[in-house]
């Protein structure tokens, strides 16, 4: 395998918080979803996995979350292999899933309360929960409303508030900005920036080249289970990410990415 990889970030080299080592996943039906993928994300860094549908982004996240077991290789969180000790690994991460609906008959605060407690934090009071919702930009009057009337952006904000309150050193995000309007998307990216500055290690999957370029410290381009290229933010200034993306993508998914 020839990975088009430029020089690595020195901080990541030193102590990666999220790391995959030759991570491979072959499903029961024989499809090779991940093929020896290795990358690292250090604290205070945002890593964006960029790729079309079926590239292996979500599989990678699933492996980090311990929802599936790797065929070979490992996904490490703070040095803990997720398939060996998933519960201890999960204590160190927060997760924002794609298009999460949450519990439609709970209010925003009730949803927050439940998931934060589930994450192991029982010390938060209503004010702190509200403050987190304020921070992600959910209007005050929506705090006590049931989720079933919420727009996608509002739900995404709740999910991010949960991740913030959990106060884990790492955050995993699955297509966090897909389907958001430009304003919401921008606010969302801003928040991610703030979290990075607080020292969180952030791993996100996306097929939005624009957002990836805007926020990621490092971008990994994935195609059909392989990590085909990796770039530092600084290098992207000079290089056309879109051209690079299309170059490494074959087949119909490339066209989709271009037209987007």
């Amino acid at each position, binding site marked *: 395998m020839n990975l088009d990889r430029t020089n690595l970030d020195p901080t990541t080299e030193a102590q990666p918080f999220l790391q995959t080592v030759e991570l491979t996943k072959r499903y029961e039906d024989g499809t090779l979803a991940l093929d020896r993928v290795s990358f690292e994300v250090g604290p205070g860094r945002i890593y964006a996995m960029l790729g079309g549908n079926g590239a292996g982004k979500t599989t990678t996240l699933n492996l980090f979350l311990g929802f599936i077991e790797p065929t070979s290789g490992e996904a490490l969180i703070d040095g803990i292999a997720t398939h060996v000790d998933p519960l201890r690994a*999960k204590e160190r991460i927060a997760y924002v899933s794609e298009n999460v609906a949450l519990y439609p008959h709970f209010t925003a605060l009730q949803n927050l309360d439940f998931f934060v407690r589930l994450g192991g934090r029982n010390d938060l009071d209503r004010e702190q929960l509200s403050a987190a919702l304020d921070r992600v930009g959910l209007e005050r009057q929506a705090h006590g409303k049931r989720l079933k009337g919420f727009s996608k952006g509002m739900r995404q904000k709740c999910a991010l508030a949960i991740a913030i309150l959990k106060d884990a050193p790492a955050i995993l995000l699955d297509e966090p900005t897909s389907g958001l309007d430009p304003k919401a998307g921008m606010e969302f990216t801003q928040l991610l920036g703030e979290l990075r500055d607080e020292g969180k290690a952030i791993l996100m999957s996306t097929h939005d080249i624009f957002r990836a370029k805007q926020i990621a410290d490092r971008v990994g381009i994935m195609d059909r289970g392989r990590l085909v290229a990796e770039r530092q933010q600084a290098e992207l200034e000079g290089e056309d990410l879109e051209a690079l993306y299309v170059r490494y993508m074959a087949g119909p998914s490339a066209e989709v990415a271009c037209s987007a």
Partner: protein
Amino acid sequence: MFSLIVRKELREILGTPRFVATFGVVSLLILLAFYLGARSYVHARAQHEAAVAENLRQMEGLTDWLQVRPSISLPPRPLASLVTGISNDVGRNVSVMGLGTLRASQSRYNEDPVLAVFRFMDLEFIFQVVLSLFAILFAFDLISGEKERGTLRLALSNPVPRSTWILGKLCGAAAALTLPLLVPLVLGGLLLVMSGVPMQSEDWLRLGLVVLAGLLYVGANLGFAVWVSALTHRSSTSFLVLLVSWILAVLVVPPSAVMLAARSVAVPSVDESLSQLGRLRTQLWAEDRKAIDTYLQDNMAEEPDRIETAAAIVGRFNEFFQQRSEARSQALEELEARLAEQRANRQAIQERWAFSVARLSPAAAFSVAATGLAGTALDLPRHFIDQARAYQEVYERFQKEKTGGRSSGGIQIAVRVASADGEEPREEEVAIDPLELPTFDYQSPPVAEVLRTAAFDLGLLALFNVLFFAGAFVAFLRYDVR
């Protein structure tokens, strides 16, 4: 963590409008079942008492206990109106004649087929059909629904062991669906008390056990629904599968299993035994008549000229007749007992067969348990006839006592003698006191016995619970949350 999940599950189920709506309907139906049960009981009680009183009233003015053929009937019992079982299908009335076969006739459905058209809405029906559907309606998307909403991924991204999560959900859902049911059930109990239904403490115990069986049954449905939900990825699929299983388990398996299994065991028909008895009776009677004829001719021939008092003739004849009739009824009883035993043995095999197939469905197990506890199961006709036989003996003794040893077995012979001088040597006729008639009081089988028989089905229901909950548990541990 566990209690957090339980509380969330409770709140999530109880807070939905669908719970509020369906729970309202279900509560109304439960209360309705209790109300209708109480009304039917009170109504049936009044009818029964009227019939008994009418029976006694009709006896007024009679002068000879030999003329009395008491008719006893199965009294309405509070639990039988809540769990009707087969109580409306079996004969309710028995006409007690001195000796010989007793048959219960006039089942309520035969008498009032209009009632058989739609049958009753009793507590058993509510549990078996409505509440099972209710449990499915809330549990079908317990797992697959969370997956569809994405909350499952979010929740499991936390350091929560899957076992804790599923246990919390199962406990929460079981509590959310069964505990609220206790409210209408308790209100229903109050309704019974207020309607003046005389519930003994024993009845309360039985009712409590019926409710327990019902809750176990609801639990089994819940467990099964969660299991299916943990085996499927779309809630619409799990609902379809559950609905089809519900139809099979509630509407199809119990009747067809019993129909097919019961018909594959040949049981001698009632006609056959009745016909055999009838033929024996005719044959014996023919012999006896010959004997009586001979007796009469012999006795008359011996003393052609002596005029006796009528009482002495009647007395001697009665003695002779009674001997014959006792011998006759003994022979009949023997045959009857043999036939009944044959039939009972075959029926026991049939019952074992049919019920073990039907019990594949928890609905059938519940039904058998509930009717057994309420005393309206298959052994109801047996108990009733046994007690009617006991009464028959009591009445036989009573009659002998009253009439000085004459029995009314077989036929009544009235020998009317008019003496030559035209004076009628008749006995002194005194009206009988109908209140002296021994009363018939149906005793439901004792609780201990009922419990022993119901224990199997209660255990089976508990086993279904364990099995389904374990299935749900294991299936969830292997559930693909992607």
